[in-house]
Structures are given as structure tokens and as C-alpha cells.
């Protein structure tokens, strides 16, 4: 079948990539160079001169990446050599774009600056990644506590709806905060959920894939086996109601479906799950005003009514204007007007990239994401035990799906949601979670090699 050859060709191609740390080091040099170049171009384009400020935005993340590289050398020497440079490349580009938006904000005399914070958050996230690599040498330890992970995920998900610490921004209740510190627990929850699913499914996959009764020529599992999927569907709807965000709900449910499908090999779950998801989304668009507004803006963003409505399509349309202005090769870093797009530093950083780097840049960024996802799938493929396979797949898929939902939303392919763009967007929780995913994938790739070599 051609699809099989297509999807297997790419991992095979990448097999040629040596896993050595030396290769990673060369790539890191390259990436650091790209970051320096991007920052310099921004300074020249906006301020017409370069300044030593550049080092503030360049050096700390670079040092952190090298630290992570060093830890890998010490503790996971056979880990995948592409993941760190690719994620770091995106992270640095994000910092550059946020810095560029800061410069525009300074010119306009505005108070909202994000870049310096993003630099330190990136360093912190990479440090946490290093800690994960250092201490989770064998990912199978994670398998021991699936229910604990699941329970933790549920608690984290419920936190934003809690009184006092819960925060609602732009209509979605995704944040918790104490004072000025805010945190999006859902980002961490997605990792815990992947661990929970992987542990649960690895031990239950036999019973879940047992043949149930036949109805209309289709194999339908018994009620016992339908239990989990129903339960989780209800949980996703619960998330939607509590957090008022369709994207998070789709992300978790999609993760669940893909992992149960992979564990059992039964398309039935995907089929019924998709039907449930779409039904849920349609019902939600009827029941909840905020979902309905998102759908209206998505279906006809250019109508004046949606454009000028509060929470309407203004942001989406401004993002599209920006991307269109970028054309094929982009306006050039520092030469576009991404500051015209609301929340260009976080939710709409993809559009800001599209404006200044053009379609070429958008393709490159999407290709980097796809490469990270492929590496994750390859790690799943080469791991021997079910838990590691499922976990790697789940983590890779969650990145891919999140990119799809976010950038699809920004480009008008899907209704807009409150998810963040991994590695690029300003925001600590997102950086932390995605670097933790990279760390787990690195660990999983290292252990897989060790075991197959043994």
C-alpha cells in the first residue's frame, strides 16, 4: 500500500541520521548561528543599528541548550540527535519574534514586553528537560503510577475552574494564577494524560481489543470495553464546559483516541470517537455562546458583523492580512507589521511568523514540527515494550495535533481555539510542557537503543 511506504519512507530516510552527540553539537552551532542572525536582522531593521542587547536574548538560551546537550552526553548518549536542535531552533525563533514585537511595542510606548521573560522561561524549561533526562533514565518507572498520573491530570485540569486561583482570559478558563504569576496547568496535564493512557492501555490492550458482539456486520465491543471511551468523552465535555475551550477538549480527546487505536488496532474506536467528537463540537456550538461565536467567526470571518463583534473575527482577519502581506518570501524580520495582530506574541505568533518570514518560513516551521513528530513516531516504532511505544506515540501526536489545531485556527482552517503554538509562543507553561515532552522523547529514544543493542 502506498500510504505505508510513504510513512515508512521518511523514518527510513532519517535512520541515516547518526545519533551521536557530535552530530547534535554541529546542529546546535548552526541553530545558535541562525538565532544570532535573526536577532541581528531584527535590530538592524527596527533600530537601524545593532546593540549589545542581542546577547541578552541569545546567550542564555544557547547556554541552556548546550547544558542540555552536556547532560545528554553524560546520561543519554544514544538519544535522538535531531530533537534538541529542532526544538531549540523553534524556541529561539520564537524569542526573536517576541523580541521584535517588543521593539514595536517600545516604539509605540506600550507597556507589554515579553521577550526577556521568554528568555528566562526557555532557560528554565530546558533546565527542567535536563533534569528529566538526568533522573528519568528508564521511562518504565513512569509506568508504575498510571492512576496517580491520571488523577494528577484531572486535578490540574480542574484547577482553573477553582475559586481564587482560577483565571479567565479571552473567554477561556485555562489559567491559574497567584499574583502576577500565571500558569496553564492543561499543558502539563497533557503529558500526565499521555503517561496515564500509555500505562493503562499497555496493561489492558488485550481486553480492549477482544471481539465483542457483532451488530450490523460491525464488531462492537461489550459495554465493559465501551466504558473507558464513554467516560473520557464525558471528561472531555467536562473540560469544554469548565475551561470554555474547544481546542483543549479536542486535544485531549484526540490523544485518547489515537492511543487507544494504537494499543488495540481497532478502527472502531477512531470511528465512534470521531463521531462523538464532531457531535460534541456541534452540540457545543449550539449550547455555548462562546463556541457559537467562534464558529461564526470561522465560517465567515470577513463579514463586517463578525469582524467588529467583541471576540469576533478581528484577530483572525488581522492575522490573515499579516500572512498575506508576507507573501512567498516574507516582509523580512523586523520589516512587517505583526504588531497590528492582537496577541501576536502568543496565540497568533504563527501569523506573525507568516508575515515576516513568508510562506517559505511557514513551510519551514511546519516542516520542523513535522520532523519532530516523525522522530517521535520513529522512537515509538523502534521501542520494544508497549508502554514506551504508546508513550512516544502519544507525545509525538500531541505536538502534531496541537500544531494542527493552533495553526489551522490561525489560518482559518478550523475554528480558533486557545491552544498555544509549541516552542514559539510566549508563555512558560507551554515551554515547560513541550520541553518536558522533548526530554521524555529523548529518554525514550535512548532506552530503545540501549535495549536493542543489548
Amino acid at each position: 500500500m502506498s500510504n505505508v511506504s510513504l510513512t515508512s519512507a521518511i523514518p527510513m530516510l532519517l535512520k541515516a541520521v547518526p545519533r551521536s552527540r557530535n552530530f547534535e553539537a554541529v546542529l546546535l552551532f548552526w541553530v545558535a548561528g541562525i538565532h544570532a542572525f535573526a536577532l541581528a536582522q531584527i535590530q538592524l531593521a527596527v533600530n537601524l543599528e545593532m546593540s549589545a542587547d542581542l546577547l541578552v536574548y541569545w546567550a542564555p538560551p544557547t547556554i541552556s541548550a548546550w547544558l542540555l546537550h552536556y547532560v545528554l552526553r553524560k546520561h543519554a548518549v544514544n538519544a535522538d540527535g535531531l530533537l534538541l536542535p529542532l526544538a531549540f531552533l523553534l524556541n529561539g525563533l520564537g524569542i526573536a519574534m517576541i523580541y521584535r514585537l517588543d521593539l514595536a511595542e517600545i516604539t509605540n510606548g506600550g507597556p507589554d514586553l515579553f521577550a526577556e521573560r521568554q528568555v528566562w522561561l526557555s532557560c528554565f524549561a530546558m533546565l527542567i528537560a535536563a533534569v528529566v533526562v538526568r533522573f528519568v533514565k528508564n521511562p518504565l518507572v513512569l509506568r508504575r503510577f498510571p492512576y496517580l498520573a491520571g488523577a494528577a491530570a484531572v486535578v490540574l485540569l480542574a484547577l482553573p475552574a477553582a475559586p481564587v486561583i482560577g483565571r479567565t482570559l479571552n473567554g477561556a478558563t485555562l489559567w491559574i494564577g497567584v499574583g502576577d504569576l500565571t500558569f496553564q496547568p492543561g499543558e502539563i496535564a497533557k503529558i500526565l494524560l499521555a503517561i496515564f493512557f500509555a500505562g493503562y492501555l499497555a496493561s489492558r490492550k488485550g481486553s480492549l481489543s477482544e471481539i465483542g458482539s457483532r451488530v450490523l456486520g460491525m464488531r462492537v465491543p461489550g459495554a465493559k470495553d465501551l466504558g473507558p471511551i464513554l467516560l473520557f468523552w464525558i471528561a472531555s465535555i467536562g473540560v469544554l464546559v469548565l475551561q470554555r475551550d474547544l481546542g483543549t477538549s479536542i486535544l485531549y480527546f484526540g490523544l485518547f483516541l489515537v492511543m487507544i487505536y494504537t494499543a488495540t488496532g481497532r478502527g472502531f474506536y477512531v470511528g465512534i470517537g470521531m463521531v462523538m467528537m464532531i457531535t460534541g463540537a456541534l452540540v457545543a456550538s449550539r449550547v455555548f455562546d462562546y463556541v457559537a461565536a467562534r464558529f461564526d467567526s470561522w465560517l465567515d470571518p470577513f463579514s463586517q458583523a463578525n469582524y467588529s463583534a467583541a471576540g469576533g473575527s478581528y484577530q483572525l482577519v488581522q492575522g490573515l492580512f499579516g500572512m498575506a502581506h508576507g507573501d512567498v518570501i516574507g516582509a523580512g524580520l523586523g520589516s512587517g507589521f505583526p504588531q497590528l495582530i492582537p496577541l501576536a506574541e502568543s496565540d497568533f505568533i504563527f501569523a506573525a511568523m507568516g508575515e515576516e518570514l513568508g510562506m517559505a518560513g511557514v513551510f519551514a516551521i511546519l516542516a520542523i514540527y513535522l520532523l519532530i513528530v516523525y522522530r517521535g513516531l520513529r522512537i515509538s516504532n523502534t521501542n520494544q515494550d508497549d508502554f514506551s511505544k504508546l508513550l512516544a506515540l502519544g507525545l509525538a501526536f500531541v505536538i502534531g495535533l496541537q500544531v494542527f489545531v493552533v495553526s489551522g485556527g490561525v489560518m482559518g482552517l478550523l475554528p480558533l481555539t486557545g491552544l498555544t503554538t509549541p516552542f514559539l509562543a510566549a508563555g512558560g507553561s507551554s515551554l515547560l510542557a513541550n520541553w518536558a515532552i522533548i526530554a521524555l522523547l529523548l529518554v525514550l529514544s535512548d532506552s530503545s537503543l540501549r535495549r536493542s543493542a543489548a
Partner: protein
Amino acid sequence: MNRQVRRVGLFLTVMFVALFAMASSIQVLRTQSLYQDPRNVRAAYETYKTQRGSILVGEQEVVTSDPINDQYRFLRNYDSVLYSSVVGYFSIFSGSSGIERSMNSLLSGQSSAQFFEQINALLDGTPVTGAAIELSLDADIQKAAWDALGARKGAVVAMDPATGRIIAMVSKPGFDANLLAGHSSQATTSAYRELLDDPDSPLVNRAIGGDLYHPGSVFKIVVAAAALESGRYSTGTTFENLDRYRLPGTTTYINNSNNSTCGDGALVTLETALIRSCNIPFAILAVDLGQDRIRAQAELMGFGDELAIPLTVTPSIYPQDMELPQVALSGFGQFDVRTTPLQIAMSTAAIANQGVLMKPQLIDQVVASNLNVLSQPQPQVFSSPMSRETAALLTRMMVDSVEFGAASNAGISSIAVAGKTGTAENGIDEPYTLWFTGFAPAESPEIVVTVVVEDGGGIGQNGTGNQVAAPIAKAVMQAVLNK
């Protein structure tokens, strides 16, 4: 399980292909429509980053863009109010007009003629700079026209009949474009409101637009040209010399402006009628000649055409489907005949240039920032509305009109000036519109001047074209002849 992993990979690949396709659609297929959406301010913002080209009169930069330390980078600076009606204004908050508007793509560096400059700018990082526009205006003549018009509302157009180059174009009152070019949205918008609400409409370039004027007797040169061109009339053709004339099919009478006959005798020639600017013979002539012939002649001279010089010129009107009494009135430029001063200057220029009308032009050349000449409009024939003989006959009559006829105040000693006045009525108690159009020297014209003064030059129904408009034209002609 690996089979499922591969399928998940395929699924993700399909999702990403959709993203690639969507990006291509936005950034390639839909760029134009998104860029042109009126809600997209990027197109406007893009132009601010470019140092806009200067506008020059002769060697002198009358409009410049000066670097300034704010988000708009450059401040447009208008040197003199003398040129306000021609150069117009370029405002961030209130649109644009004049040369600033019609030459915008070149001034802003966005035109296709500047493609290679844009590529170079992209490659070596130097910012694109807009092209400079050199106007055909002559600073001295412009100043003479401005001063001669004084505090009166109206317009002066002066052009070189042999090339169509416009050497002076004044519209009063003018305005200070610096008020609209400012970078404070509030100040600019309120200044704009004030100018818009001003009953004297300073933003309108009266020479080429606005509400148009009744031409009155200056239209007689068009009717006379139509008559001579028809072959049925000569300068000696006679008309009944009446002291009043009943409009055909009505009980309404019209008079000559002296309320008497057109000179002595029972008959009056076309020549005398034009020199003395009598209405009754021209009313008879118009009815006799027919509106179609007059309209055809008027259209050959530019009536009904929307010219771009490159400012957009409002088309002048000779009405369609008139009844006979209206045709009679149109013979001396009344009823609904309406025109721009430029149109009258063009009609005059056709006579001055021996029957060949050159297309009016305000631009001498457009020079890119690298000093390449991007465009240099060449003199262009607009039409040949009359024979050389007709032009010569009309010239002679217009010279006589200045020497001992109705346009005497335009006379310059030792030089033959050709001219025609007009005193157009606008309604029972409305002040007159006062005209003069002419050229000098008559035998080899260097300049055509058309002057219009609104509101009777401030003296209601007491002024005539000869009293008010002719001396203004004379001052402008002298400025040219003394150079």
C-alpha cells in the same frame, strides 16, 4: 502495533498537508484580495516607511519628506501655499489629493517602473525612496497669477499652447497642506473637518473641478468656431440687429448686455457680434446652427472628456437634448453649459496653436532616487478641432476684441493680445461669474491664460469680465512676456 504507528504518521502527514495547502492559499492565491481589503492598513503603513519623493517646480523643492523620529519616519512638508491646489495633500488620516494622489505610486516608490530599484533595495538593504516629480509649473508665473488674483475666489490657468504644458494653475482660496500632513490624528482630522466645512471649499481645485462654472460669453469662441467650421458662415455673415430677442416658442425676451442693439445698422456681422460680445446674434446663430454641431465642436475641444493631466479633470458639459430656447441660451454660454477654467483654456489654446489642441500636462518629468528618468511626458496632440483658417479668423477677432472691443483691459502696449471676456449669470440676484480667456502675443502665442473670478469678484452684479478678470490675465501674460 507498528502498523498503527505508521497509520498515525500518515494521519498526521495528511493534517500537515492541509496546513501547507492553507498557507499556500493565503500567501499566494489570496494575497491580492487580502492586501486590498479596506480594513487592512498594511498597504498604507507600507508607504510610510518609504521616504516619499519630492515635488519640484523648476529647481525648487516645493514638497519634501523630512526624517522625523516617530513611527511614521517622515514628515511631509509643504513649502508654499502657492501650489496647494496642484500638489494637494498627503495625509495619514484624511486621504490625499492633487499630485500627491494621482502620482502616489511613483512618489511612494511602489510603481512597477521602480521594480528594479525595489529589487536593489531588497538586495543591498538600502530603503526604497520615492521618485521626485518635476512639475511643468513656472514659479514666477505661478506667483504672478497668485498675486494678481489677490483675495478673490477663483482660478487662473496658464499654458503653453504649442506643448500643452501648464505653467500656472492657481485656485483660491488655497489651504495649508501642512495642517493635514501632521502625525497627530486628532489635530489632522479636526483641521480636515474645518477645511471640508469651509463654505469657500479651499480643498477644491477650481481650475479643474468642483461645481464647474457657467462660461457665459467665453463660450462664444466655441460657437463661433462651430459656425466657421460648418462652412455655412463667415466672419461677414450677418444677423438681424435686434435690441431684444424673443426665445423661440416662448414669451421670454433676452437682451444684449448693453440693453440695446449690437452697434448701429439693421444688420450685424458675426465678427462684430464676437468683438462686442453681443448675446442676441449668438442666440440666433446657435438656433440656426443647431445644438448638435455646437456639441460636436465643444467635444472636439475636450468637453465631456475626463482628462488626466495627471490630475483628474471634471468633464465640462454641453447639455444633451435641449429645447430651442435652451439652445439659444447655450449660444452665449448660459442655460446648463458648465465648464472648468482648464476647458476654456484648452478651447483658447486650440485657436492659439493654429487649430491643433495639445493635451494639457502638469508633469515635466519623473526622476527616480537613482536619478533615472522614469517618465517624461512628451507633447501630445489632443485633437484638431478647427482648420488653420478658422483659427486665424478667430485670433483676429479676439485681437480686435482686446484692441477696441469688449476685452480692452487686457491690452498690452506694443504687443497684440487676443482675448475674450465673459460675464456669466448664475440666477436673478446671484453675483456674476467673471471670465477672461486669451493669449499673447497673438501672432506667435507663448501663453494662453484663462481667468475665472467667482461671486462677481466681490462686487455682485456690478463687475464684468473686462473689469475684473482681464487685468488679472494681463498681469500673468506680462509676467511671461517679460521673462
